[in-house]
């Protein structure tokens, strides 16, 4: 047994921890715990919601003698069901992180050198407002764009709209779930959304395609995944890597990277050819089935075998298994779906497979989520921008339903369709989130203003002109979370402890900036409590109730067709579109087709990346609790390939990509658990920003090696699994 001893484990997980500790999880951190009044004694608990990822689980934080102690799931929460994921549990570390930004910073030398002058909030926001007004005067208000991630961007979005800019984008669309959502919109007329409307807990057969639940730690989904395993559901996993999820599977399909559409077509071929699909459902709700059926006719398992490496018998057997459990067979749509540039068509193929199984709208498939009615705050109307959005001129990507970050980046570089001269970046590390770092830097060089609002000084903050330190989620109020889920609820985030230095909540930053821009009329409320109470009163609730309970739920409404939800499809045909006329009209395949991905240079490995359960993107590596659980990433290489190259687990290597970009040194993991034609690493490591002292130089960054990307012609997503690397031993 490959037993990791505890001491060895410590060596791995605690390596290089930078804060000397004598006692306590974080050691003594002078200054952090200075009481601002009489010393608090005893235990108190505060309900709030988590911000370690975007899932927004409801939590209860415990403070002991005035010091934050622990955070646990709120038992009343439908999302966490009283249990947070490891990141949420480690959320205390966000508060104590010694790498946090402490005061507003103004750039003191050339961009990217990370030399700063600490200034007051008045000076920092005054500077930002002055620059924004100058850009507005010269180029119009549309020349300032916002990049943001998560609910925390709400008020900055409001300020930017009040300023007159329509340009606001999040990497969660074009770098993540966008293609999946486009594929489902084209098929069912609705996106999957977040949290995903996947009824995993009731699935009798769960199919995962590259989705590595368990390592990808979306709390509710992982909990339901465990429930599905516990209740004996059949798990089918297609992945080039033997993931944790694969280890739970009855059928593990070791698929060749980039050939998922071929597998999906072959599965559909079997279901149609053997008449195993849900005929009644397809007849009642389907459009263009006959044309679709003739399209998938040539794509037999035998055709798919040389493409995918999956044996025809296995394809048939798994297709029949899916049919056996329908409609409670859930072909999971995944989340991070920007892989090869034909991702919206892959999303559509997944949607179509689900449609054949009749799982959309059905128990054990996809449910219809609901939300409570909490009216928006009655703001004055925004000014109408003189020009439309800059990211997708002339609807170049006709099926993009959200703004495209990389479209704004391109407009910033080219000045077309109009110049973009200011970026406000909230809580998203664009250097690691967008493909091709060099392009991002080129765009930054074309800016008159780059403002970054964040908790830690990430790589994008390093390029900023002004850095604004945000209070962590444990120290601030937030916009309400009006959740769209099985059980609708409204939840409050509220301060548990004070900020550790001169950090401010995003609502305060956005409001003060608006006032300095002369837009005070757009903030009729003076305090966030006033705003939240106003919204809650509109729903018959109050801030006082939410402060006490954390969340208020409504009864679960009907969520399946079998419970009376009317099947409705917001597609042009008002049906499930097996054949898509709107795709055909725009010159795309009306039924997905497989295109073999381009091979890499001889002797190279395709670069794949994914998630670890203890980190989120590139934003948690300095969290002292989570860094103890995982302080660096490893590169997975097939053990036979490693042996051929004379490499062993633990050896330090660098990865060089097809364009000559060389990574930081990274430890090798020689393992049987991956195909021989690819390597894999967890995203978010290999930090280069000087301010991230705990994470600096730990592991390697996949993002740095993603110099190439394939843009999805349907919706502008950036397929990133198209890079290849070789390994070089580090001396």
């Amino acid at each position: 047994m490959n037993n990791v001893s505890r001491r060895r484990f410590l060596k791995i997980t605690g390596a290089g921890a930078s804060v000397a500790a004598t006692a306590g999880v974080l050691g003594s951190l002078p200054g952090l715990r200075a009481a601002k009044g009489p010393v608090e004694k005893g235990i108190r608990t505060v309900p709030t919601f988590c911000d370690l990822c975007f899932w927004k689980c409801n939590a209860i934080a415990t403070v002991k003698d005035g010091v934050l102690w622990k955070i646990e799931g709120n038992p009343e929460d439908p999302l966490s069901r009283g249990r947070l994921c490891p990141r949420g549990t480690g959320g205390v570390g966000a508060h104590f992180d010694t790498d946090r930004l402490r005061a507003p910073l103004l750039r003191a030398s050339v961009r990217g050198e990370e030399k700063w002058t600490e200034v007051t909030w008045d000076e920092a926001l005054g500077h930002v407002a002055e620059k924004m007004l100058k850009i507005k005067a010269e180029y119009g208000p549309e020349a300032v764009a916002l990049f943001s991630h998560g609910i925390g961007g709400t008020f900055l979005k409001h300020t930017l709209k009040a300023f007159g800019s329509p340009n606001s984008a999040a990497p969660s669309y074009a770098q993540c779930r966008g293609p999946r959502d486009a594929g489902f919109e084209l098929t069912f007329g609705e996106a999957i959304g977040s949290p995903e409307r996947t009824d995993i807990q009731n699935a009798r057969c769960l199919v995962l395609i590259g989705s590595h639940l368990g390592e990808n730690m979306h709390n509710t989904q992982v909990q339901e995944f465990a429930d599905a395993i516990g209740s004996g559901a059949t798990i089918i996993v297609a992945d080039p890597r033997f993931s944790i999820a694969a280890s739970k599977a009855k059928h593990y399909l070791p698929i060749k990277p980039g050939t998922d559409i071929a597998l999906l077509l072959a599965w559909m071929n079997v279901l149609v050819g053997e008449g195993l699909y849900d005929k009644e459902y397809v007849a009642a709700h389907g459009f263009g089935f006959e044309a679709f059926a003739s399209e998938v006719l040539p794509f037999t398992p035998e055709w798919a075998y040389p493409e995918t490496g999956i044996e025809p018998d296995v394809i048939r057997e798994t297709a029949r298994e899916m049919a056996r459990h329908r409609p409670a067979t859930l072909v999971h749509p995944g989340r991070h779906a920007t892989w090869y540039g034909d991702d919206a068509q892959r999303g559509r193929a997944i949607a179509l497979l689900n449609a054949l199984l009749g799982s959309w709208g059905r128990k054990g498939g996809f449910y219809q989520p609901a939300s409570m009615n909490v009216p928006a705050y009655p703001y004055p109307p925004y000014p109408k921008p003189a020009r439309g959005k800059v990211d997708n001129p002339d609807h170049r990507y006709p099926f993009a339903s959200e703004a495209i970050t990389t479209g704004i980046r391109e407009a910033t570089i080219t000045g077309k369709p109009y110049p973009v001269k200011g970026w406000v970046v909230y809580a998203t590390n664009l250097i690691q989130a967008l493909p091709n770092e060099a392009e991002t830097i080129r765009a930054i060089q074309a800016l008159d203003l780059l403002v970054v609002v964040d908790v830690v000084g990430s790589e994008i903050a390093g390029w900023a002109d002004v850095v604004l330190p945000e209070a962590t989620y444990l120290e601030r109020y937030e916009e309400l979370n009006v959740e769209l889920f099985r059980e609708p609820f409204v939840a409050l985030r509220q301060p548990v402890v004070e900020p550790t230095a001169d950090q401010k909540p995003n609502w305060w930053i956005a409001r003060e900036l608006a006032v300095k821009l002369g837009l005070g009329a757009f903030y009729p409320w003076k305090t966030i409590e006033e705003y939240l109470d106003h919204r809650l009163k509109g729903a018959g609730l109050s801030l006082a109730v939410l402060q006490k309970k954390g969340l208020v739920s409504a009864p679960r409404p009907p969520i399946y067709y079998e419970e009376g939800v009317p099947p409705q499809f917001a597609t042009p045909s008002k049906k499930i579109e097996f054949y898509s006329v709107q795709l055909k009209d725009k010159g795309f395949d009306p039924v997905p087709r497989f295109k073999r991905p381009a091979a890499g240079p001889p002797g190279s490995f395709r670069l794949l990346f994914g998630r670890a359960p203890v980190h989120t993107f590139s934003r948690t590596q300095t969290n002292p609790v989570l860094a103890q659980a995982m302080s660096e990433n490893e590169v997975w290489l097939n053990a036979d390939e490693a042996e051929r190259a004379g490499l062993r687990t633990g050896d330090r290597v660098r990865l060089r990509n097809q364009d000559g970009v060389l990574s930081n040194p990274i430890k090798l993991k020689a393992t049987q658990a991956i195909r021989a034609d690819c390597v894999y690493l967890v995203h978010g490591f290999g930090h280069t920003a000087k301010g991230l002292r705990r994470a600096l130089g730990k592991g390697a960054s996949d993002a740095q090696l993603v110099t190439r990307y394939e843009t999805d012609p349907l919706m502008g997503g950036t397929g990133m699994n198209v890079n290849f690397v070789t390994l070089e031993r580090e001396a």
Partner: protein
Amino acid sequence: MARLGMVIDTRRCVGCMDCVVACKTENQTPEGMNRDWITYATRGRYPRLSMTIQSERCNHCDNPPCVSCCPTGASHVHEWGGFVLVTKEECIGCKACLASCPYDARYLHPDGYADKCTFCIHRVEKGQDPACVSVCPTRCMHFGDLDDPESEVSRLLASRKHHAVLPEAGTKPRIFYLE
């Protein structure tokens, strides 16, 4: 008297380390030191593989060598529940127990005493589960009285094939893994 132990369902466990993180925050263990940890064992050749994931910690053995070797009596079996505990005031930091433990479950706390999992006795006494059990998002961990045939842990052991870690060490561990 209750004989408290743990039953962990390896089929449900995804090795997310929430138990490790929860122990750290609950018990404020020193930086870089952990009272519980995960082992991942992969067998076979690609693509015919299997993997076992286990959340491990002190087994609170029925026959604990760490107790019998302790020169001061600091390591002891608690009268209630049979927890194996350390009275830190009585510990001289000689590390005999660290050496005797076949599970490598102990570390020397920077303050000079041997430290390890307590099964969160401070929580269990209040009727709560240990932190690792109560946090687990996959609900793969169960805690209860192994001597009570009606307890959840006993029923799980009676109904499923299971194993312990290093039973051959003869320490009679009290954590069982369902297969």
